[in-house]
């Protein structure tokens, strides 16, 4: 099972996951379109999934891959709820720009 890790060392997976995760974080902080923010959150979770798979292969231990299934299932449920909230907001204010959500301050 370790053959793939002999071709590409573990460090590369960790670095790629960290880069993907950072792109996700930047996206959540700086993009204003709610749909894109959702996609960036998914990117963060998928960076974690990739990291877990790489570690799981490295250790020869299946529990990391089981965790990936948990994360995928839960992320799907989470984004379903998020999109429902977004549709509700769109019905009320006709936009998905999260800067328009400014009723609550200080």
């Amino acid at each position: 099972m370790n053959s793939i890790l002999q071709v590409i060392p573990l460090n590369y997976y960790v670095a790629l996951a960290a880069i993907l995760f950072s792109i996700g974080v930047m996206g959540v902080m700086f993009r204003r379109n709610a749909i894109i923010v959702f996609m960036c959150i998914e990117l963060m979770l998928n960076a974690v999934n990739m990291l877990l798979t790489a570690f799981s292969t490295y250790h020869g231990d299946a529990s990391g891959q089981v965790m990936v299934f948990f994360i995928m299932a839960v992320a799907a449920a989470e984004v379903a709820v998020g999109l429902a909230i977004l549709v509700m907001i769109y019905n009320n204010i006709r936009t998905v720009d999260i800067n328009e959500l400014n009723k609550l301050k200080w």
Partner: protein
Amino acid sequence: MKALIVIALLGVVAMMSEVFRFKKLLLPLVVVGLLAACGLAIGDWNTAIRYYSDMVYFDNYALAFTSLIIFITLLWLIISKEYFASDSSRAEHATLILFTLCGGVIMTAYSDLSMFFIGLEILSISLYVLASSNKHDLKSNEAGMKYFLMGSFATGFLLFGMALIYGAAASFNLVKIAEYIQTTSAHGQTPMFVYAGVLLMMVGLMFKVSAVPFHFWAPDVYEGAPTLITAFMATVVKTAAFAAFYRLFSTCFGDISGFWAQTLAIISAITMLAGNVLAVSQTSLKRLLAYSSIAHAGYMLMAIVAMNNISGGAIFLYATAYSLGSLGAFACLHAISKYGDESIENLRGFAADNKIWAAFLGLIVLSLAGIPPVAGFFAKYYIFYGVLQSNFAWLVLVAIVSSLIGVYYYFRIIIIMLQPRSETASVLPSLTGAHKALLLISALLALGIGIFPAFLQGLLS
């Protein structure tokens, strides 16, 4: 474990009530079920069994917090009849509350990081829906959206931290992680992955417990969500989040506390100062309570910083005192804000209209402020004592200063309550029986715990 099964089944039954048309019976059924669950949790005391190849571990710590959050939910149900009144959404609301509670119980009792993640998500996803459950109110929509974005953002950090720790320790099991950290730190060769993982998990958890600088969502969400849901979030959910935080750090990361304790101490100091200072200038009672709950999160973080043999009992006592106090205050807020106005000025003349109940409210506010005869004082006392034993004297000094700031705005509530109402002000809705009952119960419990604080604290020491 039995309590968890009962709550989960109760949630499924609540969903079924829509199909099989026994919605009228739903609330009594939920109350009976929760009482049974609470009884079962207390009945398991001192058993400490590991279930499902060590996925959950119901030790005394888990059982105490499980009973506490079920009990607080039962108290919360006294005032929340209105939330289950509308016929079309009664079953959904009950189901979501029960599943939130289910997630909370898993968060107090997990023994594996994957269970922690699942418990947290069961709790959070139900809460996203509950926070935005007031569909046509833009504020509630916004609260739900903000809570969702911040919650899933924090989950991302938490998961990245878990993945890094898994990468080092090759297991999600708390005991195995603890063993791994103990052996590596004894030889002084803890890998970087562990440090990075601890830091990322700390960020994720601090989002969840609304510690400064990750607190900015909390006042908005607390203000926008329906008042009853805010009361639920500020008590049950916060208790569960702290139970999970303390369990993780005390089981796994105690051996490398030199790495994170100082950081956490600074964050705890900033949290209580910022929460109390920002609460002073609030005009809305709901927002004031939101900032006060941020400040209380700072005090509870102190117990995690101290991490010695009395801090488990201290954080339990504090969570109990804080939940009772907050629930009483939110009950009062809910009673006087029936017309949608949550300004603190609404309390003017409250004492003249309801003499006894104003006295009980005063007692609850004193408990939140931490004035001697009531529970809040002894909760703070044990936390401060534990922190002093762990040599963080400066943190105790900061905590005392911030408590004094806290006393200022808590007393403002009492002073406004005692002043006569102006001629032109509209008459407040009078307290209903349910609100009176909750005020009475939480005030008496706060007083009772104030007289015998060592009992609750001693349970976990």
